[in-house]
């Protein structure tokens, strides 16, 4: 009885800040200006299919790159003594304390046509290259901003693996590569799924990164939604419909991944 009572503030919080906004998004997406039901806006989303494909594509690439970079880092960290690894985790987190906009601005001045990178390349006689306003720059921005969100869940899962399991695997004939594939990898799957979620979801809905590093040609879903609410294309119904479709896509991808995760646990 008492525990139920204690959960009331949380339920109220959830209701006011999660459920109600969700219902409002759904309401806006499925009605027109007069408040009558319509599917027109949902079907209109279809014309932006290329933006969806680009957003999901770039986010998937960024997520995979994050995973490839973060995995060995997290594994090495998990093998260090506690105080050492904590220091390094702090250093990795440090850029996170700086404003998101500021960090992305920094990349703008690095990648610009007259930016530092091209300047240095010019000194040794190559370039200039078009670095900014490319999809590569958008992916770079995503990886840079979201990498810690991949490292942390991986590290926290790997750190809990009993090191004697690695010795046991070695004892039973595994070389170091097999220790990774047969023991570390299967045991770190929960960290991988969590890390992918924590990188993919913000990446697929970002609009600042694409705006600042992608120029006009790399419009993402986030930009599209923002334009419907704040930009000159003002159309909150379409904006809500795009949000709704994006939400469904993300949910589908997450469900797919979690079922893979569970299968992994049973199969191996």
């Amino acid at each position: 009885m008492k525990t139920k009572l204690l959960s009331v503030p949380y339920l109220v919080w959830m209701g006011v800040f999660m459920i109600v906004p969700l219902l409002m998004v759904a309401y806006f997406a499925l009605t027109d200006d007069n408040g009558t039901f319509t599917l027109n806006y949902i079907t209109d989303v279809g014309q932006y299919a290329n933006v969806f494909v680009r957003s999901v594509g770039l986010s998937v690439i960024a997520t995979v790159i994050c995973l490839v970079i973060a995995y060995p880092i997290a594994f090495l960290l998990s093998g260090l003594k506690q105080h050492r690894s904590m220091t390094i985790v702090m250093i990795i987190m440090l850029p996170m304390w700086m404003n998101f906009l500021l960090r992305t601005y920094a990349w703008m001045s690095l990648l610009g046509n007259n930016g530092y990178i091209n300047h240095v390349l010019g000194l040794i006689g190559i370039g200039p290259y078009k670095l900014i306003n490319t999809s590569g720059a958008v992916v770079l921005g995503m990886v840079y901003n979201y990498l810690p969100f991949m490292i942390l869940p991986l590290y926290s899962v790997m750190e809990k693996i009993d090191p004697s399991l690695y010795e046991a695997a070695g004892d039973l004939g595994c070389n170091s590569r097999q220790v990774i594939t047969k023991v570390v990898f299967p045991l770190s799957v929960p960290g991988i799924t969590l890390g992918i979620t924590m990188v993919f979801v913000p990446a697929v809905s970002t609009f600042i990164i694409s705006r600042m590093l992608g120029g006009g040609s790399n419009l993402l879903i986030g930009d599209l939604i923002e334009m419907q609410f704040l930009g000159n294309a003002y159309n909150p119904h379409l904006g809500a419909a795009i949000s709704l479709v994006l939400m469904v896509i993300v949910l589908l991808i997450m469900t797919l991944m979690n079922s893979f995760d569970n299968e992994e646990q049973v199969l191996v």
Partner: protein
Amino acid sequence: MENIISLKDIVVEFDGEKILKEISLDIKDKEFVTLLGPSGCGKTTTLRVIGGFITPKSGEVIFEGENINSLPSHKRSVNTVFQRYALFPHLNVFENIAFGLRIKNVPKAEISKRVGEMLELVNLSGYERRNVARLSGGQQQRVAIARALINRPKVLLLDEPLGALDLKLRKGMQRELRRIQQQLELTFVYVTHDQEEALTMSDTVVVMNGGKISQIGSPTDIYNEPVDAFVADFIGDSNIVDGIMARDCFVEFAGRGIECVDKGFAPNEPVDVVLRPEDIKIVSTDEGQLTGIVKTVVFKGVHYEMIVDGGEYQWIIHSTKHEPVGTQVSMRIEPSDIHIMKKTKEI
């Protein structure tokens, strides 16, 4: 080839501190060897040197006549049952046991057959699909043994495998392990800090203390002829008191001169006198050599344990009969039951 494993002057250091101090040990083929010693004396470390998880700072590890110092653990024909089992939580019982064979790409049919045999050997048939995390301590321990044995190692290293089990299960598993060792004709190197376990199971007991080997011998030798006061104290309860060898076959302790059978000490050399609790007999006053007052009596199942206050020393006595608390008793020790040891430095 007599010795399957030899350790020669093994030194292991952690953070500049010597953990193993020139350990030398020969292990014969098909022998049940137990490393016995108090916590922190270096038993696990010695086992890890043999298993290939630690490279010694100096010294040689010889396996069937060859130096294997630089051979990594996955290439040694030695398998380990770890102190806390280290079963793979993501694999079920069958896959845990099959792990070593899968790594060696053994054909599927043979894997099924051999895992089945192993499950039978450790009495776990029917548990194939169980999650290892939900097994009892005793069952986990048997999975760990099966997982190691399926690779048909020449030597099995076991690090306190029965540490987490209750007394009854322990006794059962001790018999079980001994049976497996004899049935498969394997060499077992077994670590424990339980002296009774060491004495009942082993062919050879290696008593370790502070990173050194104190004594190597058969259980009877270790029990009856401990080389120093530490071994005597560690192997069973002992009364250890200061004495002086007045001359050959005559020792003075607890204010009395008593005949014994040891000789070869310098005249009036200070020694440790070790008396087993079951060797101190309660006798009538005229036969007695020592006297004291019974302080406590505890029934230990087979015998009574009495603490007798003799003024200078508290004597521990084991006997099937007991005297009431508070009575004055006389005690007698046969000359051959008095063990004289050279003084060792206090540890």
